[in-house]
């Protein structure tokens, strides 16, 4: 692998609400290398989306980045002025969301909206239009010359997500952040979109940061994975390391708690309790109240990342 395209270092993000202050992202560090697909995976409230939004600097008003750096191609995005940041957005880092309908303007044909993005690069109008049709072909939209004239509501969910990818692709960014890109889609459509995302990496060399709660998508797509729990990365490694030799008890338990499509199995193992409330995080290791291997120290001192193998780290007092 080449150098890191994006390097998140010790990122901390805090939310202020009427009920108190919440540490949504706590000392999170990871790299996204050139031409790889990196997945941030975790359950609701684990901080994966906040991390993604912090990279784009699109966090809500009551949310502040309190520490750390986000180095992207030599620039620290945390320190950039808003004006500089807006030229990074779209042009250098593209983003697609769970619900593309929220991001598309209902009153313009989708081709026009994608061409707006192309026109930002100061190309002549007719050339821009040709390029849009070309990109629609790249994301495998059938009848691209016809579809550019469609309005968002005339398209299916899968087609809209393709349009979003096309719009993103038109600026040719180095990094694509995909936040739950297929969660709203059916299985057969999801498979199509995942193929397109893989193609992006293979054909254009785009690096991709996938945010998801679905371990199936991670297994299908990612080169490397970080598992998040209660604002922290608890395990990070290659996709094979995470799925075949997980070391953190949370990852290990999740792998056994997930029903497999490949076989009819006996009773699933379960993880007791539920995802912790960020307002009342347990002391020490956040996972210790649910952890079958917890020791005395776990409830007192927060663990440090330990090395488990080449590029494989986990956050636990135990040896895994």
């Amino acid at each position, binding site marked *: 692998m080449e150098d890191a395209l994006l390097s998140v270092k010790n990122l901390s993000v805090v939310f202020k609400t009427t009920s108190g202050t919440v540490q949504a992202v706590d000392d999170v560090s990871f790299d996204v290398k050139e031409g790889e697909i990196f997945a941030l995976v975790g359950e609701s409230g684990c901080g994966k989306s906040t991390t993604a939004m912090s990279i784009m600097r699109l966090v809500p008003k009551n949310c502040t980045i309190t520490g750390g750096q986000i180095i992207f191609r030599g620039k620290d995005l945390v320190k950039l002025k808003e004006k500089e940041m807006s030229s990074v957005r779209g042009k250098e880092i593209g983003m697609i969301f769970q619900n593309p309908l929220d991001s598309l303007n209902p009153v313009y044909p989708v081709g026009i909206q994608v061409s707006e993005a192309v026109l930002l690069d100061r190309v002549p109008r007719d050339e821009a239009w040709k390029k849009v049709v070309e990109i629609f072909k790249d994301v495998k939209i059938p009848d691209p010359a016809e579809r550019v004239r469609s309005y968002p509501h005339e398209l299916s969910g899968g087609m809209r997500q393709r349009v979003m990818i096309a719009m993103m692709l038109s600026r040719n960014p180095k990094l694509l952040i995909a936040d739950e890109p297929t969660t709203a889609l*059916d299985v057969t459509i*999801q498979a199509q979109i995942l193929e397109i995302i893989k193609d992006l990496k293979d054909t254009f060399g785009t690096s991709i940061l996938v945010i998801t709660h679905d371990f199936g998508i991670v297994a299908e797509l990612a080169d490397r994975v970080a598992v998040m729990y209660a604002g922290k990365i608890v395990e990070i490694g290659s996709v094979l390391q995470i799925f075949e030799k997980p070391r953190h008890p949370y990852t290990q338990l999740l792998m056994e708690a997930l*029903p497999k*499509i490949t076989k*009819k199995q006996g009773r699933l193992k*379960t993880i007791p309790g539920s995802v912790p409330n960020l307002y009342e995080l347990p002391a020490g290791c956040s996972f210790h109240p649910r952890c079958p291997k917890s020791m005395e120290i776990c409830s007192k001192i927060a663990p440090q990342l330990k090395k488990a193998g080449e590029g494989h780290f986990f956050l636990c007092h135990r040896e895994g």
Partner: protein
Amino acid sequence: METIVVIDNVKKFFNVTKGLFKKHLYQIRAVDGVSFEIKRGETFGLVGESGSGKTTVARLVMRLTDPTENTIFFKGKDIFKAKGKELKDIRRRMSMVFQDPAASLNPRATILDSIKRPLEIYGYKKSEIKAIVEDTIEKVALGKELLNRYPHQLSGGQQQRASIARALVLKPEFMVLDEPTSALDVSVQAQILNILLEIQERYNLTYLFITHNLSVVRYVSDRIGVMYLGKIVEIAQVDEIYSSPLHPYTAGLLSSAPSLSPRGRSRKKLLLSGDPPSLINPPPGCRLYPRCPYAEKICREEIPELREVKTDHFVACHRAGELDFSGIVRW
């Protein structure tokens, strides 16, 4: 084994009208002639994507909506003809758990009030109610201290346990589970699935389990029906359907579903192209034909009937039996 539910070619169409004088615009054929039987003690998994009509089937079985044509039998009785005492008797023997746990409980009632309400309706005494509620919440592992709380004070997993407890207090024989875990976190999903399996064993419950999740349905089901655009395309035993699907849609669905093994990525896939067509103007003939790589002339012209191709393995495909998906399906 005794058959407990018979769904007999049931149809449900929605008319879309416009304006004061109800100009008839079009008809949505949400459920278009669905037949299957559920046997006592089994879990019948009904799988399909959005728009397949699986939730409408669930609502029909619970008599929450009336069919346009034909009917459903519960223990030999036509549920849509039942009235008064007979209907009440059917209602107490079946219950339902819904997808959205937060919306499944009355926000203005305490958890206790919600759980004990079915018992009050059927005239149980106060002392009986207390004993049954205590017993039931223990079975679903719902803490006693949660009984006096309101739904919004509970986590999603706890809300779903309360919903299951409410569905269980009347000791029903048959339960419809409509995506009971799809709104939950993965670490909570296994808890709920295991509870459902435990209570099924203990009370010899029969389940109709509706989901789009192919891993979950494999874990819980004995037999599976696959729905596509209002029709059942395949019914078989769970292992049979996963190891040798006969319908191209089932094969496509199975091969599209992500597995939990990164090494399985390079498998040969059968990707169904395009989107499901609209239910308003479904294609004539087989509804899969515009997306099916194996479609022939007959598929465009004739609607395939569900027929028994192997023992207990029913498929609605003109080419069933001649197609081989063994290179595509990996298990």
